[in-house]
């Protein structure tokens, strides 16, 4: 055993062991000396001499610690597979404070993966003094197997900011940002979600590097990693998503067996089929949440605090430019209409079906979009069918009571960008084009046939 005063290994050296990828194991014993050994979900470094262990259901471990304060902890470095044994002495239990909140954030993230935030909560954070650190096996970093260190220079960040600053509209800003994250900063897979009008859901406005675009997909704030980042307004990072999801699912199944929660609906998963690492950062402006920027990787432990800083910077730029774009659109709603004529219609019939309950729109028999964007499209095609007019101002839409837009921050411009991208993604016979500040044109390649269950 090595005295911490003499050992060359410090808690700081073990930081990678605390990322949750390889579960830690703890042995305790009761007052009569009966040992107990189990896995832990979260271990945190508190300071140079202490660690904190999350306590969700460690009832036996907690009872043991009350009788015998000693514990033995096994940790594995998820990059090198070096293994360490820590000799611990229980000091106290925190139910509030900085350490508790840090552990609670981690537990909440696990809970968000399978929709258990209502039942799976941190009860307390047990604080231990580290009396010794034994190196069981020490391995060297393996080239190519270490976590991806983002070699980001300020020049690349500045270039991305410059590219974004040259964009004329929100769709362009997000598209350029995600493309720049890839070719300038090396984040191959990314998506941008924006907060909806009620501040309850996030919807995908653009994605990059995924097999399917997924524009328009929605999740509740609090669901999944992006939802957790939105709810807490802080970056959320996971380096071993498959491990975390399995742990979370095991807990959820146990709760379902107890009847505490019903069978869960599926939480939207990352759109990359083999995502191992995910980083979701809130896009904030003036302290207000605009959306969430998510980057993903199939590599385990791909992101670190440096990545958090870089992606946060890009998310902040997107948020600020989104707000500027919204303000600009609002100011320009009185601009004169553009004169570009609509595309000539083909002979085909474009069948649009609308379901008022949730604003779903189907083109022919294919689902297109729902919610506010669906209602907007329905309003536009009705107007087009009734009057033959194809151009419209955003302000006109704002006055359409059937859209039921909130008076404050209606996100309508964003919804139109989303709708435009969704129509493009589906190569739909209906397309939206910008034709001036605050104005759009609806182009229809055929005769509209409208059907609604209203």
């Amino acid at each position, binding site marked *: 055993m090595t005295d911490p005063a003499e050992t060359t290994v410090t808690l700081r050296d073990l930081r990678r062991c605390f990322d949750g990828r390889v579960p830690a194991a703890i042995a305790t014993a009761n007052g009569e000396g009966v*040992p107990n050994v189990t896995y832990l979900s979260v271990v945190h470094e508190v300071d140079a001499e202490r660690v904190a262990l999350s306590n969700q259901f460690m009832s036996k471990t907690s009872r043991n610690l009350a009788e015998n304060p000693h514990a033995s902890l096994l940790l594995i470095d998820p990059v090198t597979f070096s293994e360490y044994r820590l000799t611990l002495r229980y000091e106290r239990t925190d139910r509030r404070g900085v350490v508790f909140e840090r552990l609670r954030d981690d537990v909440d993230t696990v809970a968000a993966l399978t929709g258990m935030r209502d039942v799976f909560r941190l009860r307390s954070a047990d604080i231990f003094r580290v009396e010794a650190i034994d190196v069981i096996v020490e391995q060297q970093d393996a080239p190519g197997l270490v976590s991806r260190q983002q070699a980001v220079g300020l020049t690349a960040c500045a270039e991305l900011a410059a590219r974004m600053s040259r964009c004329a509209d929100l769709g362009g800003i997000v598209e350029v940002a995600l493309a720049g994250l890839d070719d300038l900063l090396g984040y191959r897979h990314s998506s941008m979600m924006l907060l909806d009008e009620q501040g309850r859901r996030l919807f995908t406005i653009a994605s990059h590097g995924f097999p399917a675009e997924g524009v328009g997909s929605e999740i509740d704030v609090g669901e999944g990693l992006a939802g957790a980042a939105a709810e807490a307004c802080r970056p959320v990072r996971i380096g071993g998503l498959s491990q975390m999801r399995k742990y979370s699912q095991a807990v959820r199944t146990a709760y379902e067996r107890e009847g505490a929660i019903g069978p869960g609906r599926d939480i939207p998963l990352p759109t990359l089929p083999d995502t191992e690492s995910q980083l979701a950062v809130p896009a904030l402006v003036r302290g207000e949440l605009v959306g969430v920027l998510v980057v993903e990787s199939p590599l385990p432990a791909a992101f670190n605090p440096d990545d958090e800083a870089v992606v946060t910077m890009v998310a902040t730029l997107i948020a600020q430019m989104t707000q500027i774009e919204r303000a600009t659109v609002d100011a320009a709603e009185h601009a004169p209409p553009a004169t570009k004529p609509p595309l000539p219609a083909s002979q085909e019939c474009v069948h649009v079906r609308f379901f008022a309950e949730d604003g779903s729109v189907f083109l022919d028999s294919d689902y297109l979009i729902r919610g506010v964007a669906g209602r907007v499209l329905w309003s536009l095609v009705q107007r087009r069918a009734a009057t033959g007019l194809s151009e419209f101002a955003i302000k006109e839409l704002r006055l359409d009571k059937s859209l039921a837009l909130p008076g404050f921050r209606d996100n309508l411009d964003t919804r139109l960008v989303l709708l435009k991208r969704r129509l493009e993604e589906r190569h739909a016979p209906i397309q939206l084009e910008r034709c001036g500040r605050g104005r759009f044109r609806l182009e229809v390649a055929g005769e509209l046939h409208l059907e609604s269950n209203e």
Partner: protein
Amino acid sequence: MIDLDDNETSAFLHSGCALLVGTIGADGLPRACRAWGLSVVDAGSAVIRVLVEDDDPVTLKNLRDDGRVAVTATSVRTHRSIQFKGRVVSTERPTAEDEARREHYTKLFLTDINDSHRYSPEMLARWARQHVVACVVELAASFDQTPGPSAGSVIDKDNR
């Protein structure tokens, strides 16, 4: 005590479950370490043979001197987990059969991790241990250690 003769339980214990061993020293200090294979020797009398890694002299001393032991088997794929409490009957040098079991178990365990967590086989090979001590344990109790609200509850023959 869980029925070790039960096919599903037996299959679980002989699979690539992650194996943890907890012991206690005369000084009252608990000790955690890992094991690299487990087999049911006699289901009727609840005796198992656990291949404990032999590079921790404290654990080996605890096993021999005190003998009280906890063994936890956890599925890498599902996190299902069972903890046994018992007492060491004997510690022995590994037989050829033990070595074959260790190799077989290591292959199953690392395959489970590779399939579940996508570590490269080269990295996982770093984790594997070559040297073990065979530890015969008479079990007295079993507990559900699967994470969740029932973690720590007793498992018996009627409550698997």
